[in-house]
């Protein structure tokens, strides 16, 4: 077996992060349901968090053990802010749905000049 599968390196994490990000992006761009788009956005955010935390974990050798703690701290902050953002975003979606009785973005196309 090649070493690609024996040892998990930074590149594996980054590849995973990239794949998740692309899945999220594809969802945002292709799906019509606002709720699904929203979940895909969360996916993209978390993919970015994953990349960050992998960097911090694998850079311990270069910057010392504090780097891992700092990276994790950063990601915790991101998660906390993502939660707050989720609350606001969901509230907006609920309000929009009450108003328009639809979650299809094609029906919500008045955002233009």
């Amino acid at each position, binding site marked *: 077996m090649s070493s690609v599968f024996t040892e998990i390196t930074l590149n594996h994490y980054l590849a995973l992060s990239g794949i998740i990000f692309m899945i999220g*992006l594809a969802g*945002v*761009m*292709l799906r019509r349901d606002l709720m699904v788009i929203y979940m895909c956005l969360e996916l993209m955010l978390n993919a970015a968090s994953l990349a960050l935390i992998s960097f911090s974990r694998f850079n311990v050798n270069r910057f010392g053990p504090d780097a891992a703690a700092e990276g994790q701290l950063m990601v915790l902050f991101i998660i906390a802010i993502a939660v707050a953002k989720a609350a606001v975003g969901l509230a907006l979606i609920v309000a929009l749905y009450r108003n328009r009785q639809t979650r299809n*973005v094609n029906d919500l*196309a*008045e*955002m*233009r*000049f």
Partner: protein
Amino acid sequence: MNWIILFTPLFAAVLIALLVHPHPRLSAALSISACLISFLSSAMLVFDLGALPLGSFTWINLSGQNLIIEMGAMNDPLAQLMLLVVTGVGLCIHFFAYADMKGDPGLSRFFAKLSLLMFSMLGIVLANNFIMLFICWGLLSASCYFLIGFWFQHANAVEASKQALVVHRVGDVGFLLGVLGVWWVFRSVDFTVLETMLAGAQVAPARQNLINWMVFALFMGCLAKSAMIPLHVWLTGATEAPTPASALVCAATVLVAGVYMLCRIFFILELAPDVMEIIARVAMVSALLAALMASQQNDIKKILACSALSQVGSMVAAVGIGSVTAAMFHLTMHAFFNALLFLSAGSVIRALHQERNIWNMGGLRAKMPVTSWAFFIGTAALIGVPFVFSGFWSQQAVLVAAWTDHPGVFWIGLMTSGLTAYYMTRLLLVAFLGKERSDVVAGAGESSLLMQLPLMLLALFSVIGGWKWIGVVHFIDPDFVPNHEAGVVVMGLSFVVLVIGTGGALALYRDVEQDPVSIPLFARSFYVEELYAATIVRGQNAWAKTLEWFDQWVIGAVLVRGLSSLGTVGGELLRLIQGGNLQAYVFLLVLGVLFVCYWVLFRAHGGV
């Protein structure tokens, strides 16, 4: 005390303009009493009747730059004489103006303007530094503009006032350069300081050129105000003002302001003898040309305006040949008899319902005896009938001053006095003697007593003003020694030209129905106005047209509308992207991010 002299007319003008103008009689009374107060306080000052000491205050103090402007008032014989002339003659004109202008709907406005003119002129008379002089110089241009354009319903008056303002501004620019030059060279603008500094000073040869230009620039101011050739074009237009205003402008204020200014700064002129020579020549030529113009005018006020210019020319020439005394003496006498002539003409014009063409007059002596006699006395003074009349003595003073060292000035001056006798006799014969030439004369009658009184007063001074015991000459210069030897020769010569001039006019204009002499060159003021129209005005219009084209097409079309339509069109194009489709937005966002990534990774550092 001096501040009362100066500011009462301004106060009256402001009060009339702001409050009193709905009441014409009150406005007139206010303006006349302001002039009276100025006159009385001047008299108190001059004759030392308990006048308060002169005040002064520092207006601008930049000691680091050596620029200290101390506003104050001159109190030397020059200023005192001028004060009396301006306020005294001004007072006569104010009284006359009330009688003349009574019933005009703009009476209040007229008196406000008249008071403003008095204020500006008194400011020039009292100014003790160049800055104050320049401020009042500009005010004088403005008030002259106001008065000429008084009858703004007439297109002629409006044109003339505009022309006067432009011409005055040309002179003002030169004068301002001169003032700046004085400050630059001498580091002071105060007359007293400068006079002390320059007493007996010698100019270094290296600086002579600079000083010459400076003096010439200062003379530019006089050139415009005193209507010397080639800036004389405004003067004939100035006759569009109401006659009392023309009288004030020509006799006692604007026209003589230039002469007074030159006398005031004579100690600076002395530094540039070459320029003084130029001044004398320009002035004397102006005097001669003005006399030639006067000989062919048909408008009574234009004749008088040209004669005033001719006299002022000889005053400026007197300054140019170094005789301030003769200039001021002649200025004083001229103020009397020119005001007298203008006011009598005003009286005639009023009686003839604004008829100003002398060929429609004739036979006025029987109809208006007092006015006619006043005019005769004024004429006699102007042409210098020997021994009795004031103008004789003052013209003698000018000619005698020119006799020894300046033969050119002398002979041209002599010729001018001959011409003066000629055109004034022509005016008298055509307008006042002979038979009535039109119906308006038949209906004319003598003017009211209120108009006659100023005439009589001025006539009195036109006669006795030059007499020795009045002492105008010794008031200006206590050490003045008359040159008796030259005096006799000059007297004889001027008597000869007087006889020739009068005789020539008598021979030509006795009992004629129309002008036997026709010289369009003189009648049209040597075509200077046409020359300006063909060169300066046309050039300026062409330049204005070019600028208009530039404004319309380059600035307006390309820069303003071009840029704005670039924005509009670009906006319209970008608007197409904004379709409202959320996923299209995301797609574009991703494209943007990809572009940034591409740029950062592959282009920003010169490529991988």
